[in-house]
C-alpha cells in the first residue's frame, strides 16, 4: 500500500530521511509549477525548488498537521517565491483588467489550444506581470487546480479575498490577450472566430 503524505510526514518527523525524500519526489512537480511564474528562468525555479524543500525539512518539526502537508509546503514555496521577487528591482505593477473594445472575439482562436507558440509566451508573460498576490491566487487555482479553500489556506487569506484577487488576475490576463489579438488582427491569416 502506498503511504499517504501524512504517514510519510510522521516518519520523516521521527527522523526517517527516506520518507522525506519520497515527499520531495511526490511534490517536486507541484512546487516547480508554483514557483516558476515568480522566477526569471527555469534555472532559478529549480534552485528555488531545492531551497523550498530544504526550508521544509528544517521546519518539519513544527508542522502540526492542522492543514494538509502540500498546503503547508506550498505556503513555504509562495513565501520564498515572493521574497525572491521583492529582492529584484522592478517597476510597480498596476493591474489593468478593462476589456479592449476593438479586440476581436478570440474565444475560439486555434492558437489558444496550441501547446507551444506565441500565445503561450503571451500567457506566461501576462501571468509573470501580475502583482505577486494576484499571481499566486491565479497559479494556485487555475494552473495547479487547487480549490478556492485550499488556495486561500496556502495564502493565509479568507476565501473572499482569494476569489477577489483571482477574478482580477483572470481579467487582467484576459485583457493582455485582448491586446495581443487586437494588435495582430490585420496580419493574421487564421482569424479567430472565422471558419471555426
Amino acid at each position, binding site marked *: 500500500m502506498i503511504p499517504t503524505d501524512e504517514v510519510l510526514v510522521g516518519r520523516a518527523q521521527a527522523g526517517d530521511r527516506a520518507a522525506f525524500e519520497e515527499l*520531495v*519526489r511526490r511534490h517536486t512537480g507541484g512546487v516547480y509549477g508554483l514557483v516558476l511564474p515568480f522566477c526569471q528562468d527555469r534555472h532559478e525555479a529549480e534552485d528555488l525548488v*531545492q531551497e523550498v524543500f530544504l526550508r521544509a525539512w528544517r521546519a518539519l518539526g513544527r508542522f502540526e498537521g492542522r492543514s494538509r502537508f502540500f498546503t503547508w509546503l506550498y505556503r513555504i514555496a509562495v513565501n520564498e517565491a515572493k521574497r525572491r521577487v521583492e529582492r529584484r528591482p522592478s517597476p510597480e505593477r498596476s493591474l489593468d483588467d478593462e476589456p479592449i473594445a476593438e479586440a476581436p472575439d478570440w*474565444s475560439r482562436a486555434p492558437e489558444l489550444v496550441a501547446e507551444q507558440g506565441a500565445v503561450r509566451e503571451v500567457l506566461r508573460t501576462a501571468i509573470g506581470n501580475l502583482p505577486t498576490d494576484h499571481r499566486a491566487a491565479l497559479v494556485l487555482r487555475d494552473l495547479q487546480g487547487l480549490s478556492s479553500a485550499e488556495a486561500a489556506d496556502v495564502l493565509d487569506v479568507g476565501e473572499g479575498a482569494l476569489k477577489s484577487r483571482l477574478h482580477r488576475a483572470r481579467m487582467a490576463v*484576459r485583457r493582455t490577450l485582448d491586446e495581443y489579438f487586437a494588435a495582430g488582427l490585420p496580419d493574421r491569416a487564421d482569424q479567430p472566430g472565422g471558419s471555426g
Partner: protein
Amino acid sequence: MVGLPASHRWTRRRLSAYLEGELPRRAGRRLEAHLVACPQCHRTFMTLVALLGALPASHEQPLESLAERTVEHLRPHL
C-alpha cells in the same frame, strides 16, 4: 448604455462567480440578461471561458531529473 439589465462593470465583476456557480439565482439571471443584450460583455465572458480552458496547459512540468537532483542536493542536510 441605457436600457441594459445591469451595468457593464457590475456584470464584469461577477463573471468568475457566475462561472463557478456562486452567484445567487436572481443575480445570475440579471447577469445572463445583460450578456444577451450586450455584445461587448458577451465577448468578454466568452474569452474569459476560453482563457480558463487554456490556462491549465500553461502549467509547465519540470525536467524529470529535478526530483532526484533535489534529493541529492538535500542529502547532506538531512
